[in-house]
């Protein structure tokens, strides 16, 4: 049987990869995908805690996070589509309208 630590280490590593992706990539869609990766890592930790504490609350919280992530993806991608229409690019290096 696998202990709790294994799941949490996997969750932490996935979260770190997501952070690196957000900082590294310039395509806004890929950045959103890396945010999804981080949310999934948090969900994994919640489900693992829920299982090892034998309380269903963590699973409910993970369920709520999945729904919020779906809403976030819908609104975020809508904004990306609109930005691509207006500015012709989804590269963060080109979206410098608010740069001081």
């Amino acid at each position, binding site marked *: *049987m*696998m*202990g*709790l*630590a*294994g*799941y*949490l*280490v*996997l969750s*932490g*590593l*996935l*979260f*770190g*990869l997501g*952070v*690196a*992706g957000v*900082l*590294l990539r*310039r*395509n806004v869609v*890929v950045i959103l*995908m*890396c945010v*999804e*990766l981080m949310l*999934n890592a948090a*969900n*994994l930790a919640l*489900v693992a805690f*829920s*299982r*090892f504490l*034998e309380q*269903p*609350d963590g*699973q*409910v919280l*993970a*369920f*709520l996070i*999945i*729904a*919020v*992530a*779906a*809403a*976030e*993806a*819908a*609104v975020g*991608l*809508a*904004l*990306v*589509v609109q930005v*691509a229409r207006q500015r012709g690019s989804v*590269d963060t290096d080109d979206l410098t309208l608010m740069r001081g």
Partner: protein
Amino acid sequence: MPAPLFYLLAALALLGAGFVVLHPNPVKSALALILVMFVLALIYLGLSASFLAVIQVMVYAGAVMVLFLFVLFLLNVGVESPFAVRPLRRWIAALVGTLVGLLLASLVLVRFVGPGAGPGAPGGGFGGIESTGRVLLTRYLLPFELLSVLLLAAIVGAMLATRPRWPTLKMPPELRPSGGPEGEAEAS
């Protein structure tokens, strides 16, 4: 979940996540992310969270990733090499990502290495749709209902945000709002 199976799934998930971060083609990144989500659903099954595993496949691997792929194809996004960024930013990204991952992992190892083996099989129905749904609709009823409001707001917001242009209202000119969206559309 037996340890060898977990290590196999964890390796697959980390490999897929690395693909997401490093592959220059966004479409292949999205496909790798779908792989990661399927693997996480399998891990949820191993954690006897069967309801959440189904939801993960249906909502994440199904709906959300289809949305991502749809937008990628719609925008016809080109290939972007993650290594073509400025070297400073590349190093900062690698450093911060590694530090966050190692920090979380080491915190876990310091704090939670105690309970070595997992608990025995949980009570009947744990993680199934009945037990999860019971908690969801009693103790977490208010967040659950608020979630529907949030989803409605997201639907309306996404529809409004992707409109090519605001509807031209059949209104006499003196009644039109002066600083409204039409003025912006003309300015742009």
